[in-house]
C-alpha cells in the first residue's frame, strides 16, 4: 500500500512527485511514480529498458529512427481521417518516459497571457474563479527557477553566448520587420547549452533543462520510487483509496500489476489521463461518477473540450538572399516569436525546426513527386530547364543541387492561438483516438489571419509557403493538447474541482495538461507546471481543502 501514487511524470506529474516526495521525506510515507516509458538517465529506475546509456550518461541518440523515436514519443490520431486527403483529422504528438514531454520539447517557457484566464463561453468563465495570471505569478516564478528558464537575447551584449537566439531567428525577425511586425527572443528552459540541435530527439550533450534534471531529481533524492515501463490500464476505487492496474513491460516481459494507494494523482498528459478515466469510468458509479456533465442537455465533459492550443504549422522556403542563413538544422529548435498579432487576433508566430518530426506530424510529403503541390521541397526540386537545354532530372546530380538549395533555405513556422477546444478524446479497451469535430468560426478566423501573416513573411523574404496540411485536408496537428478532464467550479462543467480533485472522488486528483480548461495561446508546459505547483501547495498546506497529512492519517 502506497500513500501517494502518481501516474505519469511530465510537467504535472514531476511537480507532484517532487512536492509529495518532500512532504513525505523522513516520515515513512511512501510515494510512487509510475510511467509507461523509459528512464533516459538510467539513474532513477535501474530496471528501465531503452537504448543503451551513451558516453554522456543518458540514453539519447542523434537518431531519427522511428523505433527510437517511439521510445520517447507517442502519436494519437483519428484513424478515420489520418493520412487520407480530404478527410478532416487530428494528430497529437506527446512525450513518453520519465520526464514526459520535457524529453523532446523545445524548452519554450512562456507564462499564459492575462486574457487567457478571463475567456468566457456561454456566459461562464472557462477557468475557475481562483485562477488568473496574477494568482499564478508566484508559481510561474518557482517553476522558472526550477527549470532555469532564461530569456534569450538577440546580441551578445550582456549574456553568455549560449543564451542567444539562433541564426534562423534573425531571418524570421527580418521577415517580420518587412511585413510591419516585430520578433522578440523567447524564454527557454536552458542552461549552458552548446547550441546542440536534436532537442526533439533528446539531447545528448545537455543544456535543455528537462524534468530529470530538476523536479524528478528532487523527488528521487526525497525517496520517491520511480518505476518505468508501467503502463496503467485502469484505476478503481477501494474502501480506503484506489487500486491501479496495468502491465509492467520491463525486461521485454508483460507482467500484470495491481498497486493500492490512499491518494492517487493522475498525470499521464491530456490525452492519456482522459483516456485512462474513460477506460475506468465503469468502476466509478453513482455518486462517484467521473462525468457529471449536464446529461439533460446530452453534454458530457470527460474526454471533451480538447484544445489543440491553436497549433498550426506550415513549411516554406526563403529566397536566395537568405541561403544558409536559415540554418534550420542547428541549435535550439525555437528561440524567437512574434507577438505583434496577439492584441487583434490572439495568436503568436514561432519559427521552428521540426523537419525530423515531419514524417510523424504531417503526411510524408517527401513521398510526393516533386511536381506535387504538397511535395516537401517542391520549390527547390521543380523540374527546371538545364543550361544545356535538357530537362533537369529530379534525381542524380540535379537532385543533389536541388537538395542543397532546399536544405539551406527551408524554414518551418507555426502559430499558437486560442481555439474553442473543438477536439475530443475517445477510448476503448485497446485504442485511444482523438478527433476534431469542426473548426469554429472564431478559430478559423484566427488561423486564416495567422497563415496569411506567415505567407507574407515567406514572400517578403523572397520565398514561398508550400506545405499547409490544414488548408489541404483539414488536418489539425498539435503537440500541445490541453483539456479532456477540465477543471471547473461546477461539477456539471468539469471533471475536477479547482483543487484538481475529481468531483465526488475524495483523494483522486488529475494534475496535468488534461485539467487546463482552455487554450493558452502560448506553449503550455510552464502553465501546466505552475498550476500543479499551486495545487500541490494548497493540498499540502490544506489551504481551502483537506490537508494531505489529514488525508493520509
Amino acid at each position, binding site marked *: 500500500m502506497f500513500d501517494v501514487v502518481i501516474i505519469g511524470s511530465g510537467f504535472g506529474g514531476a511537480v507532484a512527485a517532487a512536492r509529495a516526495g518532500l512532504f513525505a521525506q523522513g516520515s515513512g510515507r511512501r510515494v510512487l511514480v509510475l510511467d509507461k516509458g523509459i528512464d533516459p538517465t538510467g539513474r532513477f529506475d535501474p530496471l528501465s529498458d531503452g537504448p543503451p546509456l551513451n*558516453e*554522456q550518461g543518458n540514453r539519447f541518440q*542523434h537518431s*531519427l*529512427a*522511428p*523505433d527510437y523515436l*517511439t521510445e520517447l514519443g507517442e502519436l494519437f*490520431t483519428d484513424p478515420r481521417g*489520418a*493520412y487520407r486527403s480530404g478527410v478532416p483529422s487530428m494528430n497529437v504528438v506527446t512525450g513518453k518516459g520519465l520526464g514526459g514531454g520535457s524529453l523532446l520539447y523545445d524548452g519554450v517557457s*512562456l*507564462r499564459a*497571457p492575462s486574457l487567457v484566464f478571463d475567456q468566457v463561453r456561454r456566459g461562464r468563465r472557462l477557468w475557475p474563479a481562483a485562477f488568473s495570471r496574477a494568482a499564478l505569478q508566484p508559481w510561474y516564478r518557482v517553476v522558472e527557477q526550477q527549470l532555469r528558464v532564461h*530569456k534569450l537575447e*538577440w546580441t*551578445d551584449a550582456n549574456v553568455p*553566448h549560449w543564451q*542567444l537566439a539562433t541564426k534562423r531567428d*534573425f531571418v524570421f*525577425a*527580418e521577415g517580420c*520587420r518587412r511585413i*510591419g511586425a*516585430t520578433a*522578440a527572443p*523567447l*524564454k527557454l528552459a536552458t542552461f549552458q547549452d*552548446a*547550441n*546542440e540541435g536534436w532537442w526533439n530527439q533528446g539531447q*545528448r*550533450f545537455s543544456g535543455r533543462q528537462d524534468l530529470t534534471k530538476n523536479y524528478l531529481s528532487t523527488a528521487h533524492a526525497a525517496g520517491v520510487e520511480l518505476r518505468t515501463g508501467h503502463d496503467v490500464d485502469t484505476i478503481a476505487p477501494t474502501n480506503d483509496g484506489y487500486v491501479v492496474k496495468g502491465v509492467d513491460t520491463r525486461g521485454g516481459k508483460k507482467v500484470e500489476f495491481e498497486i493500492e494507494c490512499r491518494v492517487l494523482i493522475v498525470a499521464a498528459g491530456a490525452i492519456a489521463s482522459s483516456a485512462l478515466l474513460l477506460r475506468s469510468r465503469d468502476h466509478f458509479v453513482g455518486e462517484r461518477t467521473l462525468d457529471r456533465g449536464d446529461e439533460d442537455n446530452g453534454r458530457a465533459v470527460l474526454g471533451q473540450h480538447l484544445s489543440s492550443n491553436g497549433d498550426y504549422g506550415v513549411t516554406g522556403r526563403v529566397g536566395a538572399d537568405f541561403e544558409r542563413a536559415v*540554418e534550420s*538544422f*542547428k*541549435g535550439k529548435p525555437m528561440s524567437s516569436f512574434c*507577438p*505583434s498579432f*496577439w492584441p487583434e487576433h490572439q495568436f*503568436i508566430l514561432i519559427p521552428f525546426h521540426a*523537419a*525530423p518530426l515531419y*514524417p*510523424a506530424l504531417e503526411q510524408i510529403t*517527401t*513521398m*510526393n*513527386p516533386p511536381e506535387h503541390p504538397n511535395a516537401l521541397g517542391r520549390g527547390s526540386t521543380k523540374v527546371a530547364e538545364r543550361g544545356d537545354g535538357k530537362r533537369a*532530372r*529530379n*534525381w*542524380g546530380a540535379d*537532385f*543533389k543541387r536541388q*537538395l*542543397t538549395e532546399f*536544405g*539551406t533555405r527551408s524554414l518551418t513556422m507555426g502559430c499558437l492561438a486560442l481555439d474553442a477546444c473543438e477536439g475530443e478524446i475517445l477510448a476503448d479497451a485497446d485504442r485511444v483516438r482523438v478527433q476534431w469535430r469542426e473548426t469554429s468560426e472564431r478559430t478559423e478566423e484566427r488561423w486564416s489571419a495567422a497563415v496569411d501573416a506567415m505567407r507574407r513573411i515567406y514572400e517578403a523574404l523572397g520565398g514561398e509557403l508550400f506545405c499547409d496540411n490544414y488548408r489541404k485536408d483539414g488536418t489539425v496537428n498539435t503537440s500541445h493538447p490541453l483539456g479532456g478532464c477540465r477543471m471547473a467550479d461546477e461539477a456539471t462543467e468539469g471533471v475536477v474541482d479547482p483543487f484538481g480533485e475529481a468531483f465526488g472522488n475524495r483523494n483522486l486528483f488529475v494534475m496535468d495538461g488534461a485539467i487546463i480548461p482552455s487554450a493558452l*495561446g502560448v506553449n503550455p508546459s510552464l502553465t501546466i507546471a505552475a498550476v500543479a505547483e499551486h495545487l500541490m501547495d494548497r493540498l499540502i498546506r490544506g489551504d481551502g481543502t483537506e490537508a494531505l497529512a489529514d488525508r493520509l492519517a
Partner: protein
Amino acid sequence: MKVLGLLGLGTACGVRAEDPPPGKFDALDPEDYPYREVDELTQAEATLLAAFDVLLPSERDAEGRVIVPGANDVGTLDMLALANFVPAARQLNLLPVLPAILDRAPETFDEAVRFVLAADLDALAFDQRPFTAFRHLPRELQEAALDEGFADPERAVGLTFLRAACFLAYLGGSDSKAGLVAIGFPPFEDAAANIAVRGYPRTTDGRLVDAETEDLAALAAQGVLDDYTYNLAPAPTLGEDLATLIDANGDLL
C-alpha cells in the same frame, strides 16, 4: 504481393533472368516465406545501393575517395528498415491493418520490401538490356532505366519511395550529418571530444572561435568574424513598441 500492395510499394514486375524466377514474386505471402534463406536478398541490397548511387551520387576523386557524399554515405539503405518503420507506421495509422507477420518477423519483411523494390529496378533494367540486373548495367543505361521509370506513373511509385529515402537520409541527419555538412553547414558535433559543435562564432574562413578566450571585437574590426550574433542584430520595426505587448520578463502581458 498483397501485403506489399498495402504499402503501395509493389509495382508490375517483369521477367528477370539471373534474379529469382517470376513465380517467386507472386508467392510472397506469410505462409510461404522462405526469403531469409534466399541468396538473392543480398543481391537486392546491392541493387538498391546501385540505385541510390544513381539517384544521389557520391562524388569521388581519382583515388576513389568520396569528396562529396551521396546517398550511400549517409545511411540511406537504413531508411528502408521496416524494423524501424513498423512501429511508426502502426502509430501513424499509415496502414489500416498491419499484417501479423510484421510483428513476428519485421526483419524478414524488411528484406522482402528490399527484394520487391530491387525487383522493380531489375524490371526497368530488363527494358534496357534483357537478362541483366540493374546493378550490372553500365551507368548510362542505369540512368536511362530511371528516366523510363520516373516517366511511368506506376513504376515511379517505388522510385519515388527510394528518392524520399535519399531526401530524408541526406537532409534529415538521421544516420549521419555528412549530407548537411555537404550542403554547407558547419559540423554538428565532436563526439570524440564529447561536445556539441555550435559552429558559431567562427571566422570567415570557417575556424571556430572560442568566445570565452578570444577577442570578438578585434576579430570583427579586422572584418574576419562570421558571427551573426555579434554583428547582425535585427533592425527594429518602426512604429511598434514591444513594451506594450510583452513585459520585462519576456512574457505576453
